[in-house]
């Protein structure tokens, strides 16, 4: 992201909601936490529908998960965790108040005063402060027939109502949209490592951002439903505000929504008035007294966290910290890496293969995105086929010089399609490299024949040479040894420039 022209400081803060998708039941009742794909209003009970006379029943594991996440984010854990009612009225909110936490009168939320270090910021590092981390219940969902503008009424589905959410609120410590992206990636990795939330599930992680420049009013951007869009929305909003400021137009403190189709922020439909949520302590939930030893017991149960894992990868497997970080940022890659080293002991080679080739492949062919919605061709289905043994074999074959990297990538595609082991594929497709000079000769000559102009350009232009090399690789179905082919092309060019004029 390029720096904006004006030097007024940009401040960005985030409010992130993560569903605790690893829970089996909702936060305050025994309905299933897995509401996705169910018929409307079939995953409900008197408690989560707010039927008269029902009482909330706090899920112990939800509290444990929230404490673990708070510890992972270096928060202080409150000695007495209490719940509050946030009073506001909305048809998808069955009680017309939300049970949440609130810190104005005491340290009530699960965690406060935490931090997360971004240590991969082009060499430098930066600490983002976490203001608080709290547990709360998700509302139900509204749907409309046709569009919201033409529908005469809303349709409510309460299946999601009461699902456990952790809300994380940061201080406005971000200066750039790219930092926001790094933070969210890091957070997603922590959630995955803790095994409490699967960020790839639709709607499992939602984000609001607040953005201000210089002394201007703060703008809230809501409705951002994927991690990728957070960076976009923030970038758009900065540009919008700078443009207003540069023209001397007042920036209004307001709530805006992210329109992901048009990729812009729009003013919220209704002017959201200054809300007074009339918080007060929830009388139906006994407070949770947290002792030091409870916290330590939970800490001891926590799986290895990303930072520790990166360090271990560097130490145990001699990876560069960059490579280690890229692996750990996506837990499934790191898991694949570690499992693959059991089949082949060249860890660095496996790591490099995963970080460059596999990851590149995923991003290109699988339209891979943490928040991708579909499962067809997504990383999930690929990982069902590509096992640690596949990865180990591919790295081994490349290292032994049996196949080159380009061929290996093709084999990967074949693995995804067939699930066959790379060694078997290699035998089947006779993938041994075209390493003899005379076997390559005819292909090189054919390319020079066809690409006369590029060949002439190559006399003075390196790029043209690369273009020719690409053609040679294509005609050889990737089986050519690129080094050998390049040296042959260079020879031909040199001959031409000596003799030809």
């Amino acid at each position, binding site marked *: 992201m390029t720096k904006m022209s004006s030097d007024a400081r940009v401040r960005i803060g985030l409010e992130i909601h993560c569903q605790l998708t690893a*829970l*089996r*039941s909702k936060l305050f009742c*025994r*309905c*299933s*936490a897995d509401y996705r794909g169910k*018929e*409307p*209003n*079939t995953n*409900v*009970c*008197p408690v989560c*529908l707010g*039927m008269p006379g029902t009482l909330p*029943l*706090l*899920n*112990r*594991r*939800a*509290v444990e998960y929230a404490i673990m996440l708070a510890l992972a984010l270096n928060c202080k854990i409150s000695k007495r965790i209490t719940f509050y009612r946030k009073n506001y*009225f*909305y*048809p*998808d909110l069955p009680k017309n108040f939300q049970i949440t936490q609130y810190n104005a009168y005491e340290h009530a939320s699960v965690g406060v005063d935490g931090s997360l270090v971004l240590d991969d910021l082009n060499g430098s590092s930066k600490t983002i402060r976490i203001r608080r981390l709290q547990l709360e219940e998700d509302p139900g969902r*509204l*749907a*409309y027939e046709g569009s*919201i*503008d033409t*529908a*005469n*009424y*809303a*349709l*409510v*589905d*309460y299946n999601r109502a009461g699902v456990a959410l952790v809300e994380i609120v940061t201080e406005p410590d971000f200066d750039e949209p790219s930092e926001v992206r790094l933070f969210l990636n890091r957070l997603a990795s922590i959630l995955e490592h803790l095994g409490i939330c699967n960020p790839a599930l639709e709607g499992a992680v939602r984000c609001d951002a607040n953005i201000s420049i210089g002394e201007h009013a703060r703008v809230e951007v809501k409705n951002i439903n994927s991690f990728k869009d957070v960076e976009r929305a923030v970038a758009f909003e900065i540009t919008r505000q700078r443009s207003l400021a540069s023209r001397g137009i007042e920036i209004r403190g307001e709530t805006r929504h992210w329109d992901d189709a048009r990729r812009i922020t729009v003013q919220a*439909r*209704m002017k959201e008035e200054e809300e*007074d949520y009339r918080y007060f*302590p929830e*009388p139906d939930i*006994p*407070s*949770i*007294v947290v002792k030091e030893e409870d916290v330590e017991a939970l800490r001891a149960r926590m799986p290895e966290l990303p930072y520790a894992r990166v360090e271990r990868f560097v130490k145990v497997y001699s990876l560069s910290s960059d490579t280690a970080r890229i692996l750990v940022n996506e837990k499934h890659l790191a898991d694949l890496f570690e499992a693959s080293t059991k089949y082949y002991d060249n860890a660095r080679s496996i790591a490099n293969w995963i970080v460059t080739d596999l990851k590149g492949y995923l991003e290109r062919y699988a339209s891979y995105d943490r928040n991708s919605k579909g499962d067809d061709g997504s990383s999930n289905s690929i990982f069902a086929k590509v096992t640690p043994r596949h990865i180990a074999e591919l790295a081994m074959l490349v290292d032994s010089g049996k196949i080159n990297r380009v061929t290996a990538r093709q084999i990967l595609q074949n693995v995804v399609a067939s699930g066959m082991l790379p060694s078997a594929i290699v035998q089947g497709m006779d993938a041994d490299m075209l390493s003899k000079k005379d076997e390559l000769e005819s292909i090189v000559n054919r390319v020079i024949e066809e690409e006369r102009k590029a060949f002439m350009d190559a006399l003075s232009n390196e790029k043209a040479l690369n273009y020719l090399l690409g053609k040679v690789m294509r005609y050889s179905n990737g089986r050519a040894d690129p080094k050998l082919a390049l040296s042959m092309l260079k020879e031909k060019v040199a001959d031409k420039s000596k003799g030809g004029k």
Partner: protein
Amino acid sequence: MVGIEEVRHLAYLARISIKDEELRLYAEQMDEILAYFNMLDELNVSDDVEPYRMCRAYNEMRDDVPVAFSDNVLSNAKNTKGRFIKAPKMSS
């Protein structure tokens, strides 16, 4: 002092429709009641007095075990469309 305008505003905040002709009576009554509550103001309690906690129990929690509720909990909903419940729109 609670006047007619305050009652109107409170009725709006609480989303309760009140007839105009009732506002004056509500204002008088609520003013009197709040004046009575004001005695709490004179109560001199130090900051270390812990406000009352409603419930002597603590650390009561439930295991994370799902149980489906079988009865038709929507039997009291009158405005429905298929399995959905109909509600007013949010726009104004």
